[in-house]
């Protein structure tokens, strides 16, 4: 999670994507709180607003240092820091497709609801819900796909047998 001094470009890029997903999850919570605030009592709404502010600061703390380091790596042209072929980048793309699909469907549902039973709801509530769903699905599906971390597998006895050594 906190990169090492000898971090390679590819490792940094993976860490950047992981941090991006965490930030998106935080942003999804911010949008959910924002949508809920429209229906909450004044006291609760003010607590929610404060929570949104704290989450926004945490989001910056979570993402900006890694982003700055990645930009520095790119300026120095370190190999692997723009690795679109790796496993983590690939799962991020898949998660982005899921997030977009969810957002599109949620938008269609919101459009129908805004014409019918929920016509009196403000448009910002629908937008906040759609954005929260989109970012939530993207981040959760990405984090689930990357939750398993196998230890670094060294060459061992089983391989000696396999290679006939």
């Amino acid at each position, binding site marked *: 999670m906190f990169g090492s001094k000898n971090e*390679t*470009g*590819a*490792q940094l*890029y*993976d860490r950047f994507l992981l941090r991006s997903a965490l930030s998106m999850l935080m942003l999804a919570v911010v949008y959910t709180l924002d949508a809920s605030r429209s229906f909450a009592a004044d006291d609760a709404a003010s607590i929610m607003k404060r929570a949104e502010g704290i989450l926004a600061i945490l989001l910056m703390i979570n993402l900006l240092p890694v982003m700055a380091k990645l930009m520095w790596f790119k300026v120095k042209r370190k*190999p*692997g820091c723009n*690795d679109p*072929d*790796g*496993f*983590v980048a*690939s799962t991020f793309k898949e998660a982005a497709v899921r997030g977009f699909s969810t957002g599109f469907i949620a938008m269609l549902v919101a459009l129908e609801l805004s014409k019918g039973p929920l016509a009196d709801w403000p448009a910002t509530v629908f937008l906040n819900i759609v954005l929260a769903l989109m970012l939530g699905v993207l981040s959760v599906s990405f984090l689930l796909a*990357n939750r398993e*971390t*196998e230890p*670094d*597998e*060294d*060459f*061992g006895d089983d*391989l*000696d047998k*396999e*290679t006939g*050594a």
Partner: protein
Amino acid sequence: MSSGLDNRIRVFRAEHRMSQGELADAIGVSRKTISTIEVGRFVPSTVIALKLAKFFGAPVEEIFSLTNTK
């Protein structure tokens, strides 16, 4: 009938006495990419397959092969 991708990266790695992390650094990817390719969880891009072949000095088809599954 669908095809899966089998690979012999572990064998080549053992022959070169390398860990996953060392191989990952050598071809400019992350260790997770190598470990997920090895266990067949991730199908690598042509670029990664060619980088592996170049690094091991072997043809791609010696490292990767199709496995037919019903």
